[in-house]
């Protein structure tokens, strides 16, 4: 088949809703875009362990502590599923990790904000995992098989993340005035960065049209953001918390919540490296990589010794 016929065949398969598998022919640009997207997603899971990990030793009860440990461990697992999906496209995992450690790779801007109080852990589960679920439920139908399968596995695990977060939020919101104030403060700080997680407006999102045409994204950034807002407003009302947006109001005509404009200057600043914690996050990842070196070396030495003994 010549290139034009291959592209035609590929686009026909996408249009028919077929799943593209690693050994199938695909346009180079499809491979590149997917590798970029999946590796950024993997990095986000791994860096995402840090803000919450910071509270494991300070969780208020044993129940909260085992929950948080399990959740952070899940996020590490999500990173692994995704690095493996990226590798099926021919990407080299050590190269992807080198790019992250060198500060050359992007990851979700949300993880560059600090976790200042215990209430942040609740709000992250509620907002950040909640937003991730909206995005990932769509990606579970992506046209690339390994990505879609990783997303299905991840979505099954995310529901616990969101629910445990909301349980913390509801408990604090129904607690003492000081506890209520603490969780309201966390809501105020995390609301806007959570809305930014969906990315730029459709009109300003250069990759969107292509990703949509190739069946990788089936909904636009703005559609997903709206879905998240519509889902979250009644949840906030149910536990007596307000969202920090004076423009927020229900639109009966569309049955949607209208919300104010995002501070895009902040979004671009944080994603390009100048958020409150970007340097700290990267340093933590570099330290983890260096401090884990002896473990990897020991595992290799042991594997080599076993091999020698078998050969002898």
């Amino acid at each position, binding site marked *: 088949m010549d290139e034009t016929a291959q592209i035609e065949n590929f686009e026909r398969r996408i249009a028919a809703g077929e799943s593209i*598998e690693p*050994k*199938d*022919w695909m346009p180079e640009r499809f491979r590149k875009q997917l590798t970029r997207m999946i590796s950024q997603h993997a990095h986000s899971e791994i860096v995402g362990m840090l803000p919450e990990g910071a509270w494991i030793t300070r969780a208020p009860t044993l129940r909260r502590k085992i929950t948080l440990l*399990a959740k952070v*461990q*899940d996020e590490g*697992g999500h990173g*692994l*599923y995704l690095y*493996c999906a990226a*590798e099926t496209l021919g990407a*080299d*995992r*050590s190269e992807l990790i080198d790019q992250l450690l060198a500060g050359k790779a992007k990851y979700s801007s949300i993880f560059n904000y600090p976790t200042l109080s215990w209430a942040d852990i609740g709000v992250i589960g509620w907002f950040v995992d909640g937003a991730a679920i909206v995005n990932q439920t769509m990606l579970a139908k992506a046209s690339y098989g390994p990505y879609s*399968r*990783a997303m299905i*596995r991840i979505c*099954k*695990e995310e529901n616990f993340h969101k629910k445990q977060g909301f349980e913390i939020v509801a408990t604090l919101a129904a607690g003492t005035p000081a506890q209520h104030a603490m969780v309201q403060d966390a809501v105020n700080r995390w609301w806007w960065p959570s809305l930014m997680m969906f990315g730029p407006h459709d009109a300003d999102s250069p990759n969107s049209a292509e990703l949509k045409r190739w069946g990788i994204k089936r909904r636009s950034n703005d559609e997903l953001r709206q879905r998240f807002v519509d889902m979250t407003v009644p949840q906030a009302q149910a536990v007596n918390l307000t969202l920090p947006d004076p423009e927020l109001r229900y639109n009966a005509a569309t049955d949607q919540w209208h919300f104010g404009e995002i501070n895009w200057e902040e979004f671009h600043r944080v994603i390009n490296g100048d958020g409150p914690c970007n340097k700290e996050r990267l340093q933590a990842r570099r330290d983890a990589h260096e401090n*884990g*070196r*002896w*473990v*990897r*070396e020991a*595992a*290799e*030495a*042991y*594997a*080599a010794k*076993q*091999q020698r003994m078998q050969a002898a």
Partner: protein
Amino acid sequence: MSKTEATLNGDSQWPLWEVFVQGPEGEPHSHAGSLHAPDAALALQNARDVYSRRGGVSSIWVVPAKDIIASSSAENGLMFEPMDSKVYRHAQFYKVPRGVKNL
């Protein structure tokens, strides 16, 4: 090959393993994903941590990815189409006189 010396810097990726997981006993093993590990024992242990965190698993297989031979969808026509025309391999193809049961 003195692979040991060459890779003994903790930055090797290690071989890739494909992981197959069996849910409840009696079910078939199905592909769960993949991971890197220096040897089979660690591949199994990592597979346990990565692919059975919610329990419900009764067995895990790990297979070196390089040893898997896969068909390619480009050859699906040659591989599988011959079977599509063999309707007589299905029970529904055969007519049974009215009233005859348990066939």
